């Protein structure tokens, strides 16, 4: 009996599986991927995750289809004899295809990732001198908010509102926000999940990240860097509110925290607290 063309069969099965699964992944699963649409940066990350998942779907299907085909077509029903197939060496066409396809995929992802990163920073921390600024970052309407981490909480300063410091993070909707993330002790990481923002909080360093808020929502704030015994409890929730609500809220906080305002150091991009008297 003539041996069928297994390669052609596998490719055919794989193509059919790709034609069914890839559109489902891209158009059905894609819009539900994290971190959601809480900000322009978060929406961009959903697109990126969809692209990556859409690209990896045919690759995963190739493995699965070949595995399933091999289980069915190459099953040896006579286990008394252990056999192995002939070694395949020097197949120039297969090697060329393998190198060519993987090179194209890797280079595409490198270029795509770089372009996306340079498009406003994608919500990531860029250090003290960011190069990937969103459009409008230099127009003067950006809201600066400082994120101060310490074991084990975040506090927030608003330099354009008298440098008031608060326990919770409120942001106005539809506004470009420039986050300045720093730490007073060890390395933390500020992660506003639904806003798609993640920036390391390093002591003595001003780490800048941008976020363009959208509709009002409540978002989670977490530390994403293992920072000590209570790292797992270093979480809070923040809110994106309307501009009017934000103005009202910040005015209330300025009244609430007026007693401590005189004790705060002048606003600075980073702080170097004096060593504690009992530090070792």
């Amino acid at each position: 009996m003539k041996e069928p063309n297994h390669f052609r069969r596998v490719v055919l099965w794989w193509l059919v599986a790709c034609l069914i699964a890839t559109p489902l992944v891209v158009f059905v699963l894609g819009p539900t991927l994290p971190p959601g649409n809480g900000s322009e940066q978060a929406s961009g990350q959903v697109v990126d995750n969809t692209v990556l998942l859409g690209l990896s779907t045919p690759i995963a299907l190739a493995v699965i289809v070949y595995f399933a085909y091999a289980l069915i077509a190459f099953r040896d029903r006579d286990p008394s004899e252990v056999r192995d197939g002939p070694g395949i060496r020097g197949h120039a066409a297969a090697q060329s295809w393998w190198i060519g396809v993987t090179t194209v995929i890797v280079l595409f992802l490198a270029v795509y990732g770089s372009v996306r990163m340079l498009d406003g920073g994608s919500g990531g921390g860029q250090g003290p001198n960011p190069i990937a600024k969103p459009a409008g970052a230099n127009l003067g309407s950006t809201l600066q908010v400082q994120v101060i981490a310490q074991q084990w909480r975040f506090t927030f300063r608003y330099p354009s509102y008298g440098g008031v410091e608060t326990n919770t993070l409120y942001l106005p909707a539809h506004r470009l926000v420039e986050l300045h993330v720093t730490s007073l002790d060890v390395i933390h990481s500020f992660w506003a999940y639904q806003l798609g923002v993640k920036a390391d909080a390093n002591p003595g360093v001003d780490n800048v990240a941008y976020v363009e808020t959208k509709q009002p929502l409540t978002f989670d704030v977490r530390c994403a860097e293992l920072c000590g015994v209570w790292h797992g409890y270093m979480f809070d929730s923040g809110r994106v509110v309307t501009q009017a609500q934000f103005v009202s809220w910040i005015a209330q906080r300025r009244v609430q925290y007026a007693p401590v305002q005189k004790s705060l150091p002048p606003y600075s991009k980073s702080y170097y607290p004096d060593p504690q008297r009992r530090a070792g």
Partner: protein
Amino acid sequence: MSTSSRRLAGLLVAIVVIGVLVGLYIALYLTSSPGSASAAATRTSAGTVQLYMATVAAAEPNDPHPTWVSYYVVDSGSRHWQHATTFELPANTLVHVTVYQYDGQSGLRNPFISQATGIVAGSFTLNGKPMQTIDPDAASHIFAIPQIGVSVPLYGIPDDAKNPCDNAPCNLSQDHATVSFTFRTPGEGLYRWQCFVPCAAGFIDGFGGPMQTIGYMDGYIKVV
């Protein structure tokens, strides 16, 4: 039963056993909670609860870490000191807290937390005097329950105190500050509390040892 059938059965049994063990581990992890001290929290006639605590520069000499700074709970009746940092409190109840503060001044890395938050009327008393803030450099410790916004600075005794307490247990004739405040417990649950002053003497920047070990400068509040 053939060899392959026995192997398959063995594999299935192994998978079930591993699955049960993993499930048991997860269940125990999710349902376990630390032991707690409830004796120090006593109900008053007004339906509130009184909690007495103390902070000391060093634990009792027979403690596993006798040089570590620590919180204690103090029984209101017998004045018995108990080295426990997990307290059991009733839900949705006003808790009056009195802290006997025997430790010295360390200072705050973030002066913002020198203002009390999350407590009734927004103020506490320091040696009977109502206050909202203290000098950040004079802070010894912070009593904070971040999940419910409670944070109270604890004033440290001066460096030139005449009769400081070196190790727990201390007595009221020794130099101390008395800090009192009231907060309302939330619904049932487990809430962590902690000190925010890096007060661990002998550790880099004061962040190690008792700051990183539950049972000294931090613990849980079991709200039941």
